[in-house]
């Protein structure tokens, strides 16, 4: 099963629904899904790299904390991530690399302002055939 992430409707907002074989790929799929909500990722070059490390008390909190860091990279540093590689992932910690470039309004299409990653109806579950997650974004 290839990793994938789709969006679903939620009241005023939008949710991410992801599937993958491993927890690391699941976290990659979620982060890529988040960036697809934020911008047209196809137009972003992988010109710079930055490392992100997250530790949390459980796997669901880890998903929220991880995605919050990816969002923060854009909102605080204007860094758009095009590619996401999770190097190591456990249920309570994750090390990853974002490849992307600084936001350039003339070249990049930014789509939606994401305020935050929420805990509402949050789920990260291990299944017989891999991992699945649902996360709702506050727009």
């Amino acid at each position, binding site marked *: 099963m290839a990793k994938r992430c789709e969006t679903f409707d939620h*009241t005023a*907002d939008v949710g991410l629904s992801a599937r993958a074989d491993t927890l690391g790929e699941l976290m990659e799929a979620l982060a890529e899904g988040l960036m697809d909500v934020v911008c047209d990722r196809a137009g972003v070059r992988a010109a710079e790299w930055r490392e992100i490390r997250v530790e949390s008390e459980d796997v669901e909190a880890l998903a929220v904390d991880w995605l919050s860091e990816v969002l923060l990279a854009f909102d605080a540093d204007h860094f758009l991530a095009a590619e996401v590689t999770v190097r190591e992932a456990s249920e309570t910690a994750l090390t990853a690399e974002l490849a992307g470039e600084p936001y350039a309004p003339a070249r990049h299409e930014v*789509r*939606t302002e994401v*305020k*935050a990653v929420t805990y509402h109806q*949050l789920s990260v579950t291990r299944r017989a055939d891999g991992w699945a997650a649902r996360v709702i974004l506050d*727009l």
Partner: protein
Amino acid sequence: MARGFEGRIEQIDENRWRIPREAQKGMRVDGVIYSSAELIADVIDGGGPAQVANVATLPGIVGASLAMPDIHWGYGFCIGGVAATDVEAGGVVSPGGVGYDINCGVRLLRTDLPAAELRPRMKELVAWMFRDVPCGVGVGGKHRFDAKGMRKLLGEGVGYLVRKGLADEADREVTESGGCLAGADPDAVSDQAIKRGSGQCGTLGAGNHFVEIQRVEKVYDAEAADALGLAEGLVTVMIHTGSRGLGHQVCGDYLKALRSAPGKYGIELPDRQLVCAPAESGEGRRYLSAMRAAANYAWCNRQLLINIVRKSLARFLGRAQSSLGLRQVYDVAHNIAKMETHTVGGRPMRLCVHRKGATRAFAPGHDELPQRYRRIGQPVLIPGDMGTASYVLLGTEAAMEQSFGSTCHGAGRVMSRKQAIRSAAGRQIDKELAAKGVIARARGRTGLAEEQPDAYKDVDAVVECVASAHLARKVARLRPMGVIKG
């Protein structure tokens, strides 16, 4: 995601519905929803009532878990929710009771300009202002505050801008809480939040935020309107925005910091998004200190934006600002938690009042009101959707008695953003609005579709309901002429 409410809900009178305390395990007080025969079906479908019941389980809640007629589903607390907790009895504060956009609110500017004079140039004016007002995703402001400046801004709010020559004392006086909540602590705000906020003060943002050029269409109370500087046919400008990335980060940081608090204080929660801590505990105090700092930031944000709007308008008209009668009417918060004293069961109590998508509506004579408005009551600014109307209301004694001095905050969404985009497919929302006499410009590709009038409840019905319940009284209805969105 519409979900009907399966618990018990019973009509009290024409404007109120009750979820009795027995309806759900753990409820400490009743839930009371202000609504009307016209609005209640959508309310029940919208997922809000279950959240009103959940909030009723919070430790220390007094009176009732309230919802205003613009109630709709939100994170943890519904939008339109009002909940007051008894601080001395271990009452809690919950970041979810304020929301991600801390001190999102509305500021209104009045002018001496006749709408008829601007109407023929509205397209030009909207394009002009759209260029001047920083808006949209990833767009920074004209002001950058260094670390020291940010600390002062967070700690002192609009008072700091007055000292810097970036705000008039006259504006500060007609801003809720004077544009500064005491007890704000910049040290409680994370470096990440400060980083997100340092370049965004004086920016509109995106989503439902806007600058709107309006015409006073109808005055319901001439004397009060006169006191507010409003008269039929005059132009007003309304600004709706909040604390930008800084507030979002503060909320996220404290939802995380408070994850372990319910366990520590033995609080059972029906929803993880309702995390909370006693307002007087270390965790609760720290959140309140950070939330206040974010609220101060939001007032500064709206202050810098009103400066931009004034300057832009004057330059467009080629006239001096002083000749246009540009006076701030008021500025209200609609996502905030405040320590206030209210009479409950005949005795005054110090309460932590959460208003999430709800507006303070203090009665005439309240000592927190500016002198100028003490006789008429607190102005309440209700933004509607961009095709319909906004309202100016005043606080009442009934609001003090029934709702901790609170009323509604806007129209309230009925459609998800994706639904709205789907419903706009093949339509030209800007042309539909233009046919209604509204010129709208948005930065984002989908902004107008997401915010189209059909995505919102009928603001007239919401306002009629609070007026009929006496939670506010109507002063004026404002019609949009030009809208600038992120």
